[in-house]
């Protein structure tokens, strides 16, 4: 709003220089080939950690494969990765829905997170094996699967996650076709051959562009629906329904909201490092950080709202079931994880992100995003470790009679968690070798649609809003 622009005139500097469309294509495609030593070192380290994580997962299965109460941290990492790798691509469909200009350059990076979902699927495998069927010893536990076959949650969670990864990759691909065409025209070696194959004869006709936008819109909508669906499945089948008596209607939504939060936070971190180490300052303006930070701020507040909405109903309701749920999930052995999680997800970032100056910068934003991700991990651990610590012979009770001892992570759990995150990160990093980390055509479009102007006595941007 320009009246604000006038109001804050003193803070404004000259607009960033305009970059030629040709330069955008050449420079961005060049980023795929020249990897720095630092990049290689980090990729190798993360890769090794990832392999160790997979080995640890197999060893844990050999050791503890018969005791479900020890698998809470694996459930945690599944829901954490689902949040981060599933939530980030949601940003990729924002321009279609809201026609926001700032988001165009970062959509590619967001969509790349879909490839991390592969790790989520790997981590889910042991949990599928450990989750008991719906009916055990003649008793049917509480679940969303009222009359469904006994193994419905197992099948649908796997199908859902596969579908999510697939749709995410399709969302990535449908928006990447023009860039593959650019690689066909500008890159060399195997990248050019790959571009030629994947561009599928893209020349940029009107029909092709219309189809492209329609595809992005379609896959984006599908992706959103599937993400909500999968989060719903994971949170009920692997969280709520293994806690006796627990019934929290808002929890799936709360998990969805925090997965957007985790996704945006991870995207901010990725964007920061990509921008700094690949020299993309020209293409990613501060505008993007500022808008992402406002989004993150809103999501942070939503987290606390959703949490409180469910907490107050349990706390005030005081039925036997309500008290048991609070005893297990909040007042129970994980109370410190809960407090730390709430402080790190909500309080600290809220206090950091509320300042305009912080949101206009990049470094404090990255710190805030890291804090949010740590808090998110703690909060997921609070819920899922508590849920899985209930012995499986008790999950049919009307409500939890005795709060079980919590399970502390051993070396395997730590290696699995570190490994899973590293593996997801390294997959995303390797993908930036295949395709430019910023979408070439979207950066060009961004430049085309926004024009710095002089406005009254200050600077402003004139943003075109095509239909």
């Amino acid at each position, binding site marked *: 709003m320009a009246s604000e622009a006038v109001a804050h005139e003193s803070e404004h500097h000259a607009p960033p220089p305009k970059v030629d469309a040709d330069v955008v294509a050449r420079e961005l495609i060049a980023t795929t080939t020249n990897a720095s030593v630092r990049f290689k070192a980090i990729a190798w380290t993360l890769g090794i950690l990832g392999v160790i994580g997979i080995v640890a997962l197999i060893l844990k299965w050999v050791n503890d494969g018969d005791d479900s109460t020890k698998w809470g941290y694996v459930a945690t990492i599944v829901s954490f990765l689902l949040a981060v790798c599933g939530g980030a691509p949601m940003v990729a469909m924002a321009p279609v829905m809201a026609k926001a200009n700032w988001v165009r350059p970062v959509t590619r990076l967001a969509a790349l997170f879909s490839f991390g979902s592969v790790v989520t699927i790997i981590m889910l495998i042991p949990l599928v094996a450990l989750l008991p069927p719906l009916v055990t010893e003649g008793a049917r536990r509480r679940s969303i699967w009222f009359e469904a076959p006994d193994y419905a949650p197992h099948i649908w969670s796997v199908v859902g996650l596969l579908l999510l990864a697939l749709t995410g990759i399709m969302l990535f691909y449908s928006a990447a076709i023009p860039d593959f065409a650019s690689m066909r025209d500008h890159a060399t070696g195997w990248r050019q051959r790959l571009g030629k194959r994947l561009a599928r004869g893209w020349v940029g006709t009107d029909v092709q562009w219309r189809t492209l936008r329609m595809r992005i819109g379609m896959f984006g909508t599908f992706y959103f629906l599937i993400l909500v669906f999968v989060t719903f499945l994971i949170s009920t089948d692997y969280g709520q329904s293994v806690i006796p008596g627990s019934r929290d209607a808002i929890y799936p939504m709360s998990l969805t909201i925090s997965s957007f939060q985790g996704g945006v936070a991870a995207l901010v971190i990725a964007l920061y490092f990509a921008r700094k180490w690949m020299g993309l300052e020209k293409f990613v303006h501060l505008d993007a950080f500022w808008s992402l930070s406002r989004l993150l701020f809103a999501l942070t507040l939503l987290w606390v709202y959703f949490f409180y909405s469910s907490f107050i109903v349990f706390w005030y309701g*005081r*039925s036997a*079931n309500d008290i048991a749920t609070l005893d297990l999930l909040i007042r129970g052995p994980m109370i410190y994880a809960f407090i730390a999680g709430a402080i790190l997800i909500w309080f600290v970032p809220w206090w950091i992100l509320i300042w305009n100056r912080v949101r206009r910068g990049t470094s404090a934003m990255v710190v805030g995003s890291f804090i949010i991700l740590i808090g998110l991990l703690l909060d997921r651990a609070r819920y899922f470790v508590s849920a899985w610590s209930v012995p499986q012979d008790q999950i049919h009770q009307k409500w939890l009679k005795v709060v079980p001892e919590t399970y502390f992570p051993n070396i395997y759990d730590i290696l699995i968690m570190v490994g899973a995150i590293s593996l997801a990160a390294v997959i995303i990093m390797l993908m930036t070798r295949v395709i430019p980390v910023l979408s070439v055509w979207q950066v060009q479009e961004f430049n085309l649609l926004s024009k710095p102007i002089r406005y009254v006595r200050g600077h402003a941007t004139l943003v075109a809003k095509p239909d």
Partner: protein
Amino acid sequence: MTTAEFGAHNWGMVVDVDKCIGCNACVIACQAENNIPINTQDRVERARTISWIRVERYWEGDFPDAKARFIPIMCQHCENAPCEPVCPVYATYHNAEGLNVQVYNRCVGTRYCANGCPYIVRFFNYWEPVWPESLRNHLNPDVTIRSRGIMEKCSFCVQRIRRTSRTARSEGREIADGEAQTACSSACPTSALNFGNFNDPNSKVSKMKEDKRHYTLLDQFGTDPNVIYLAKIDADKKVGAGEHASHG
């Protein structure tokens, strides 16, 4: 020394469902004792009856093995009462003697307490109460007549408790076990309703509630009632404690 002082008791009731014959004497006694307006045809039709204690019929088991049962229900005087925290004016609160008391003068009639009550034992006065001329002189002078617009419910005959403790205090002695009786418990021909002090481990009710048949109504709400039920003995089948709690 005198335990007749306020706060020394925890009043409660033990209802032996096995002894209850469903004669409704308790209901009549309560209506008479507590100045409850007559449940006329109009009130019944519009679901506005007031009966602080009622004998409910319910079915046990599925057809064809269904059995008709009945059970007296009154305010359960919950220790953890859902009606109390929701009242905006503290018109209902828990006193030191374990009673869930209703302060008529404070009540503004939001009826929120009644919504919170799982036993549906709170009643609202939709109209000013009226009695036929012939009954005007039969009203109990110890009990307030509730005007329209306020809630009322079983008070465990608090006026009788007060009278007993006053007498005991003036005579410098403790209240004897069974001395304080509610209208319903004194009217019960089979001693199904037993009123007494749960704080005294030797009182009749304290001993009765140790019975293995004991249960509380609707325990899933975690209300912790001061009314304890003893289950019906069924010759045909063994009934465990708490089995009555969940059917409707």
